[in-house]
């Protein structure tokens, strides 16, 4: 029974990792850009929620409604004024710019908020749990997984059912020809990064409620997110969810054996999947 419990908790944790990863997956799918600052942007979003909640006396679930548009704007501005200028065949400039950004955000947050651990306080819901058969499941972890599924479902609908999603896919296929259709690739990219930051804000909400956070934890979140994306297969959002769950379960199992092995077990699962299926579990056909 303990194993079933461990796996269930791992699956729930995977929901959080999928939320970390969904924005990264979206941005990579559309503009082949790997944002090394993604983890730090999630942490930035957590601090935005914290500040909103503190200043306006709001519950985090309400504060996130204000933080999300703020982060959309951050993503939009970042893409328009910085990242669009470095996109191209050479992968070096975008990598180095986002790496620089990661360092700037991390240290900017350290300067503004100090290295102290913070937490978003959501009240009694944090400790609440429900019985699923013989297993007690925390309401917050369950809510995280459900949110991940909803977010990924919504992103898929956006991608395959809307005019904007059509423009995303067309631009991803061929930006020059998309221009001939009246699509402005740079605008499309800016909107995509804005949406990725909204997803990052949702991820930040659960990150901040479920555990302590401080300005330095961004890079580790980036690594989990990246592993989820690669395990799932580039360009597949449902694959990203599966990837997050694989990492979550592996970490859970590792921790059950020895608490020191939690993170290592996730990394090893990642390496194993990559050795067996180099293109991930659900690779996109035309990539």
């Amino acid at each position, binding site marked *: 029974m303990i194993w079933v419990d461990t796996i269930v908790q791992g699956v729930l944790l995977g929901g959080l990792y999928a939320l970390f990863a969904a924005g990264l997956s979206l941005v990579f799918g559309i503009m*082949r850009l790997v944002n090394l600052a993604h983890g730090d942007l999630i942490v930035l979003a957590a601090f935005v929620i914290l500040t909103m909640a503190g200043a306006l006396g709001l519950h985090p679930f309400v504060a996130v409604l204000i933080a999300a548009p703020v982060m959309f704007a951050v993503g939009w501005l970042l893409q328009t004024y910085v990242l669009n200028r470095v996109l191209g065949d050479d992968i070096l400039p975008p990598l180095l*710019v986002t790496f620089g950004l990661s360092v*700037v955000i991390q*240290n900017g947050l350290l300067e503004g908020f100090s290295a102290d651990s913070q937490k978003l306080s959501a009240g009694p819901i944090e400790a609440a749990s429900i019985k699923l058969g013989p297993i007690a499941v925390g309401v917050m972890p369950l809510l995280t997984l459900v949110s991940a599924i909803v977010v990924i479902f919504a992103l898929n609908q956006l991608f395959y059912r809307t005019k904007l999603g059509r423009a995303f896919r067309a631009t991803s296929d061929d930006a020059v020809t998309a221009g001939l259709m009246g699509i402005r690739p740079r605008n499309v990219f800016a909107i995509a990064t804005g949406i990725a930051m909204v997803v990052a804000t949702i991820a930040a909400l659960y990150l901040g409620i479920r555990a302590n956070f401080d300005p330095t934890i961004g890079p580790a979140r980036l690594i989990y997110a*990246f592993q989820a994306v690669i395990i799932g297969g580039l360009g597949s959002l449902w694959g990203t969810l599966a990837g997050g769950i694989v990492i979550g379960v592996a970490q859970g199992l590792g921790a059950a054996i020895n608490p020191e092995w939690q993170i*290592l077990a996730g990394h090893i699962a990642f*390496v194993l999947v990559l050795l067996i299926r180099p293109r991930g579990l659900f690779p996109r056909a035309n990539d």
Partner: protein
Amino acid sequence: MKNTLTKSVAVLLFVGLALVPVLGTRAMVQDLFMVLTLLILALNWNMLAGFAGLVSVGQQAFVGIGAYAMFAAVILWGLDPLVGIAIGGVAAIVLAVPIAFFTFRLNGAYFAIGTWVAAEIVRLSLAQWKALGGGTGTSLPKGTTKDMFGVDLIKDALDMSSSAASDALTYWLALLLAAVTLVSGYVFLRSRMGLGLQAIRDNAEAARSVGVDPIRLKAAVYLLTAFGTGLCGALLFIQITRVTPDAAFDVVDWTAFVIFITVIGGIGTLPGPVVGVIVFYALQRTLADYGTIYLIVLGLIGIAIMLFARKGLWGIFTAKTGIELLLLRHRAPKRS
């Protein structure tokens, strides 16, 4: 003509730097040691990212393994630290084989994070090595550095304390390693293989069609730079004398700084890391007291360089003056 001049200046500079332990203060030696080791790391990373197009953010794996191998050699096997340095380099190249096997499957941008994950795996694994202190790390036994081969000789010859002599020894090794890295990088880039590498960077398809195998060439560069980085890691931790997984595999100290040095100086140019390390040192001296501000400034400069002057300060300099030191391409024969 110009090349001869460059070479003479370089030799003079080398001799001047070599005399610092004799003529300068011990603080100068220790400062310059850190500068030289950063230069070695930057030269290696520049070769990797700037010339081979392999943007690794996981070079701390090789610094760390070099340091740990050296500690193991000294503490577990009772070897001289200098032998430990060589073992550190070898350990790094051995580690680089499986890491390359795994990360080379990831393409382009994802390679970067893949190398980072690899470094994390090595860090977390070494934290399980209880004989070397596990997660909390360990120190070199007292007196180890003073008993290093050659320390006595230097102490007597220059009439200094044994700790100053050990500083001088590690300093000279760093200077030597930096010089060897720089010169061999230059020679390599002008060789057939090096020109092939630059051809790949400019146009992979065309390079392949004239018989350059990009994967093998890149793998060779990856292994060699791992070796250089491992040697440097071992050397660094002789001076630091205490190793912990977090310090040995620190992404900021051993990779972020190194990336900024290279980017600011001029990525993909041979003198870039040299220029970068000088600027970095100057910035560090003026801003060190401000801690996080210093890193923010570095990050912003790095971003600005990538946006406005991709070949860094050295690129700006050559564009403005037309002077090119250490020319990498063979000059085309002049048409009459």
